[in-house]
């Protein structure tokens, strides 16, 4: 066993077998922050320092102009997130953090897909679009752009359906999420 600080060789397996508690599921963190310059960098920096990869990140205003909301998702199967949540709390500009319980949360993401289709294929894509309650927002002779809203999973599913038709590109906003029921998120 290669020990730190000694000359013994470390195997790659040992390097990979680093400890840490993994929840094994996706986490959606909803963070209220003061609307000040540099806040996003401070938050992103905390994740970077631990070597965490943020899957999605959205920032937007709240009903109070001094406060913004950041919604970010990351994979709890890859990263132990409880410690980083505590670290986030230490940031002076962070007001509130919630690790949203997926069963008590409505999450939505907006995506736009540009698909290279014409003629009969276009009709087929439009049909899929209808099933997913998407909307066609642009059409040319050789392409259409479809707008879809839903959970990440739904958007993933839509992508799988339209990809074979010739997906030119796809834009996703990242999820926003709100707690179910009367209480605030």
């Amino acid at each position, binding site marked *: 066993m290669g*020990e730190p*600080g000694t*000359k013994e060789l470390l195997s790659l397996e040992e390097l990979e077998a680093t400890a840490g508690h993994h929840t094994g599921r996706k986490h959606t963190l909803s963070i209220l*922050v003061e609307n000040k310059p*540099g806040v996003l960098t401070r938050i992103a*920096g905390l994740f970077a320092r631990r070597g965490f990869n943020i899957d999605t990140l959205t920032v937007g205003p709240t009903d109070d102009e001094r406060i913004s909301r950041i919604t970010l998702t990351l994979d709890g199967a890859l990263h132990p997130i409880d410690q980083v949540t*505590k670290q986030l709390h230490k940031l*002076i500009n*962070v007001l509130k953090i919630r690790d949203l319980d997926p069963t008590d949360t409505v999450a939505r993401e907006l995506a736009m897909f540009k698909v290279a289709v014409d003629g009969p294929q276009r009709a087929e894509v439009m049909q899929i679009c209808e099933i997913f309650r998407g909307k066609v927002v642009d059409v040319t002779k050789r392409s259409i752009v479809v707008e879809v809203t839903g959970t990440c999973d739904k958007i993933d599913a839509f992508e799988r359906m339209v990809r074979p038709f010739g997906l030119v590109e796809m834009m996703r906003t990242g999820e926003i999420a709100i707690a179910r029921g009367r209480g605030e998120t």
Partner: protein
Amino acid sequence: MRAVDAVMECLKAEGVEVVFGYPGGANLPTYDAFVDAGIRHVLVRHEQGGGHAAEGYARATGKVGVALGTSGPGATNLVTAITDAMMDSTPVVFLTGQVRTELLGTDGFQEADMLGITMPIVKHSFMIQHPLEIPRAIHEAFHIARTGRPGPVVVDIPTDLSRADIPYEPVTDVRLPGYQPTTEGNQKQIRQAAKALASARRPVIYAGGGVVNANASAELIALVRSDRFPVTCTLMGLGAYPAPDPQWLGMLGMHGTRAANYAMDEADLICCVGARFDDRITGKLSEFAPRAKFIHIDIDPAEISKNVPAHIPIVGDAKNVLTKLVAEYRALEADSSRLEEWWSRIDGWRERYPLTYEDSADTEIKPQRLIEAMYEATGGNAIVVSDVGQHQMWAAQYFHFDAPRKWINSGGLGTMGFGLPAAMGAAVGCPDQTVICLTGDGGFQMNAQELATCATEGIPVKVLIMNNGYLGMVRQWQELFWDRRYSHVDMGQWPDFVKLAEAYGCTGMRFEDKTTLVDDIRTALETPGPVVVDVRVTKEENVYPMIAPGAAARDMVG
């Protein structure tokens, strides 16, 4: 009023007596304000020295230290000190100049993105964007630095904004809705902790620098003596419990005593106060204190269960929590005879494994002997500021610190070059006390330029260089773990430290004889002004005992 004059008013309102700084283009306005401000300014010779001096001042006095630098290189030279203050939770406000706002982000002359560079190493930082923000930012910086878990705060002020004319009104409130440190401690949890302590048969109290920061030494003593609890301190906590003492086990960790480390290893309950289970404490984490349940008292919730899962977490100020814990514990009237067996086991270790070394047969000074001689010469009445390396560990082992704030060192970051400037800051903060800088021939050279500051300002630091001609700690590791393949650890014989001292306007001395060492040290301490002593010690001596890297505490060697 000019914004910079408002800065001075803020500093005075915060009770600042002294700042350590270095002028430059971007903080010219600030330096102009110093002319009339009536605040002592110590002109250091390198911004890093100023940063560490502010740390030493803060650690010795318990007040917030202040360091100043200009933009660009002045600011980046502060980075090591800022990191050091972060790692050791030292309250310091760093004021840096910045290029004027129209040049921001253009690679202007002496521009460095100080906010970006320091983001991971500050408790908080302020980039001033409007001159009216300045007073509030300064006051909030002090508030953040000193409250909760203390730490460094950077305030970066563009030079044009500092010249602005603003109305100054004292700021008495802070508006930090996202910053409300928990200080009280949950009463239910505290009661649980008291019960756990009362039923523990092999308890250990493990205290760290947080106790010193919280000025909770008396409360720690009260807890330890509310029963026959064994107590050990981390490197940062030394002095929080007075040594020597029947209930004192010595320091724990990599170079701690066997009694302390074995007690942790066999404990059934560890009560951690203001410490963070650092890897230098735990050794191999998976085999650390395998039978113990943990009470973890800390002001910083992010420390709880970070390395070791806490069974009874208590977030709060150590002074507050310990006061309540002592009251709860006393109410339980636990039977201390349950600890008989535990103490006989601990006493066994203390008898069998005292800290010891083989003294030289001739006049050669063993490094451990130097520390003992320092203790004898001072009677323990000194602030000892160490650098980083073997001498630091020997001082921690052999100098018995009987009160907090008498032992100042760079624990978390392990910054070589910390010693001299930090001692300088401590001496400025505590002019009535003897301040010894114990350093190595390596670390001393990393900030030796501050001798000029000491000489110029008449700061009477007594520097003892434990000179073995090696980067001793690295050499020890190369000897023990890298087959004695010494690689670039031999420091050679230069400089001549006596001549160097004299060149800087200090008194230089050289000690080589152990038989006169105690008297020689007394002579050095009685010599007025800054003194530098080149103490020649055994070249190859190792710090023992030792938990080898990655090994478990029970497998200590040496």
